[in-house]
């Protein structure tokens, strides 16, 4: 074994309590290892969890790593926790898709594509932390431009924006 068992144990404990996905760099900073070495240990943990007597798994999501329950056990989990309702309206999903693929984008540009006003939808998406204002466009009126957040990636199970499904 290259590293002390200790390091692997610490990584497990960190993944266990963290709400946000943890990057290899962040873990490395905390436990004093290079990101590449952290990645080796993360792979070991990932493999350990793949055994059939384990109920959780390590996923790569939103530029980091996170432990979650295996999907086949969701029916049991839902006897303890409320199902994670997927409550985005059609309008919200469409708007979110436009922002995700065309960010940075202004409200007017979104409205041009959808053909309807989107003020309400944008507020709703911002309250759900799925989008945020990421700056202003250098054009008359300097309109606000919007982009997606880390929570957006987590919500849709994406590692990063390049994993968005192809639309062509």
């Amino acid at each position: 074994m290259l590293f002390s068992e200790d390091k692997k144990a610490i990584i497990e404990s960190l993944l266990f309590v963290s709400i946000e996905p943890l990057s290899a760099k962040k873990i490395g900073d905390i436990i004093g290892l290079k990101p590449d070495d952290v990645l080796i240990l993360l792979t070991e943990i990932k493999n350990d969890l793949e055994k059939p007597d384990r109920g959780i798994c390590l996923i790569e999501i939103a530029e980091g790593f996170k432990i979650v329950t295996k999907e086949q056990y969701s029916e049991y989990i839902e006897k303890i926790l409320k199902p994670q309702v997927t409550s985005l309206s059609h309008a919200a999903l469409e708007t979110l898709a436009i922002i995700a693929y065309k960010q940075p984008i202004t409200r007017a540009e979104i409205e041009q594509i959808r053909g309807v006003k989107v003020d309400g939808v944008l507020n709703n998406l911002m309250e759900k932390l799925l989008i945020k204002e990421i700056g202003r466009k250098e054009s008359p009126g300097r309109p606000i431009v919007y982009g997606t957040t880390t929570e957006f990636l987590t919500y849709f199970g994406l590692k990063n924006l390049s994993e968005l499904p192809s639309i062509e």
Partner: protein
Amino acid sequence: MAYTISLEIFEGPLDLLLHLIQKNKIDIYNIPIAAITEQYLEHLQAMQELDLDMASEFLLMAATLLSIKAKMLLPQTTIQEEQEDNDDPRKELVDRLIEYQKYKKAAEKLKIKQHNQAMFYSRPLDPMYLEDALKRFNPLENISLEDFKNILSVVLTETEDGETVKLITKGTITVKEKIEYIEALLIQKPQGILFQNLFTKNSSTLSIIVTFLALLELIYLKKVFVTQTSNFGPLCIYPITTQSED
């Protein structure tokens, strides 16, 4: 009513047009504009009769369709220089429909991803750990005594300059809005949220009070439960689970 309209709510004029195109199995690049315009206007009529809250965008599109229809009825002879593609009055509309359809499909794909991701459950925030971390937390950690002193000097100077800062609070915030806000956040963060994270540092007192009232209401409605492990400890808010404690 001569025909029954489905109560499908269209997200806008483009959505309705795409629906008509699909229903009629029409080639999007060669829309029979007269027929589609007629159907579009019928839908508009029905929406008005049903007293649906119809946005002005629907009327604007109706005008656009009628204008295209009129152009297409005119003889195509006038100016010979304008070539094929450009002189089809439908082109701009078709381009918009194609673009819109692209994102409609993307939304469908995202919906599937969202659904798949909902099968994976994260561990909720455990207040026990937070409590522990808080105990050893030094809120002044990164501030030197010198900085601290300077902060005061700056404040005092500003006051002497007679510069008055006026706080303009935003209009009314309703308990209902805050309830919706908290519920939305909990859907996003089913593992729980800290009470203090319901505000930004710029939140007004009114906003904080209204948020607290909203939280009380949610507790009363049994939609959330709140834990606090010690006096002045962090308040954690969780969505109510379906199980009953035994």
